[in-house]
């Protein structure tokens, strides 16, 4: 079943230096339960596309549906959880209270909020940190808390905009492994923006390679890798072949631009 469907999507920003075409003719279907990575150089529109899905930007052409609704209807129906590059935890709230904030806004009862908060914190292995303030946690832990918050209200779609972009390689590897496990357990449709080729190949069932000026899709790769992926799958020939194809796609996209 198709969860997200984009048909010849266009988006032009009007800036002081004249119009900038951020997205051009994007056509893409994302099926339920897929893990789709968007990879490409800066300015290729990968974040913009994610923001369109989240109804944080409005496309200027084409059609986009999220679970059969317009993006804005989907937003109001709380169809997705969004994880930004910065963890975006409010510093005056403890981790637990940061996670219950969206639940509070959505009108969950107090007991339900507590129960859900405990559950998602357990999911990201932070159950001991509910009463800590964000600054008492490392960057990786903050990002896990941010993911827990996005999971707390059981949205079917998870949108992640370079969530691990600011973290070091070691922490990133661990979080990638955890995210993959989380995805297998929850089976959420996930859209994931990244700069990293290994990260994209390791995580995704589908990789969308994008190129800039104007932002467009250069290649869509359906990953042949199995759903069970230990970290050392990254040394297998299959993995390297996919990574190679992503790299080729990126290079061609840059040459065409």
């Amino acid at each position, binding site marked *: 079943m198709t969860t997200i469907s984009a048909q010849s999507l266009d988006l032009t920003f009007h800036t002081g230096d004249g119009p900038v075409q951020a997205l051009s003719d994007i056509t893409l279907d994302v099926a339920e339960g897929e893990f789709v990575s968007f990879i490409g150089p800066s300015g290729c529109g990968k974040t913009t596309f994610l923001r369109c899905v989240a109804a*944080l930007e409005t496309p200027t052409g084409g059609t986009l549906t999220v679970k059969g609704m317009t993006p804005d209807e989907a937003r109001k129906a709380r169809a997705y959880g969004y994880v930004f590059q*910065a963890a975006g935890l409010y510093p005056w709230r*403890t981790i637990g209270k940061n996670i219950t904030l969206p639940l*509070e*806004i959505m009108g969950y009862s107090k007991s339900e909020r507590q129960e859900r908060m405990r559950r998602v914190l357990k999911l990201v292995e932070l159950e001991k940190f509910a009463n800590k303030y964000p600054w008492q946690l490392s960057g990786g832990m903050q990002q896990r808390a941010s993911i827990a918050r996005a999971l707390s209200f059981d949205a079917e779609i998870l949108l992640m905009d370079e969530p691990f972009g600011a973290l070091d390689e070691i922490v990133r590897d661990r979080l990638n492994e955890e995210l993959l496990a989380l995805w297998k357990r929850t089976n959420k449709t996930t859209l994931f923006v990244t700069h990293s080729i290994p990260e994209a190949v390791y995580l995704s069932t589908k990789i969308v390679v994008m190129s800039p000026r104007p932002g467009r899709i250069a290649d869509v790769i359906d990953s042949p890798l199995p759903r069970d992926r230990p970290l050392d799958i990254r040394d297998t020939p299959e993995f390297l072949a996919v990574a190679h194809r992503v790299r080729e796609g990126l290079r061609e996209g840059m040459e065409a631009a």
Partner: protein
Amino acid sequence: MTDMPLSAPGAAIGRSGRVALAIRGLRHQGGPILAVVAVLLALWYLACIPMNAQQSVLLAERAGAVVTPATAAERRDMGGLALTFANPGPATSSAFAQDRPRLPAPHQVAVELWNTTIGQSITSKRSLVWHAGVTLAPTLLGFLIGSVLGTLLAIGIVHSRVMDLSVMPWAIASQTIPILAIAPMIIVVLNSIGIQGLLPKAIISAYLSFFPVTVGMVKGLRAPAPSDLDLMRTWNASGLRTLVSLRLPASLPYLFASLKVAVAASLVGAIVGELPTGATAGLGARLLAGSYYGQTVQIWSALFGAAIVAAGLVAVIALTQRAVLSRMGLTR
């Protein structure tokens, strides 16, 4: 826990440990602070000599000393410094002990402050504490009105582009008008519609104190990062919810900085508000009466009284700030 030796890690950390650290910090800074105060006092005493030279020399002449020039008429055109150098002895003899000096010496002000505070019953009209209390009431009321009004204006400005473009220029313009010019008009206009007493003074205080709060709160309410606001949008949070759960908490550090400026401005407003009414009570009235009768010691002690009250008010806000921000986990 009770038998933990004092040398154990973390043994002295806690409330008492923190107090000890604060005292130690003060002791480190105590020397330089005292040195600065001593230099200021020395300069003040030094300035008293030429400032009071005319009177000192006159008093010495009356007591029989020989002074140059010999007649008061000749001396009148001389500067204080020149007179001091011409008569070093007579000029210094009574520079610090005159009844109505041009510039009272620090100890004279201190004695006057002591006599009018500790030395008087608080209910006496001669008590500076009583006068300070009279001024404090409109200060606090005006501060309250100004802070609420300033915050409401800031909320409007942040949420409405029309208000942003239309209110801010007026708010700035309001502060370019000298308060001395507008205070009598406020008093007269309010008096003509039957409002007297506390409220007119409080409104002048509010007039001065709303502005720093508005400026600070506009900045504070806009402090959240775009991604923090986007996050609220992804949860489909209402504008009110975003204000309460994101913008207001994020603005608190800005609010407290503004409140410190505002409370001092409020006190100035209340003092200025006492001047045009010819009030007989309040710090402003003390200043006014002192200048009518040439009581410089009284003027200076009222000025110091006002400064002490202002410092106290700012300190109360600083303590509140520390308590609130640490409760919110915003201080480490």
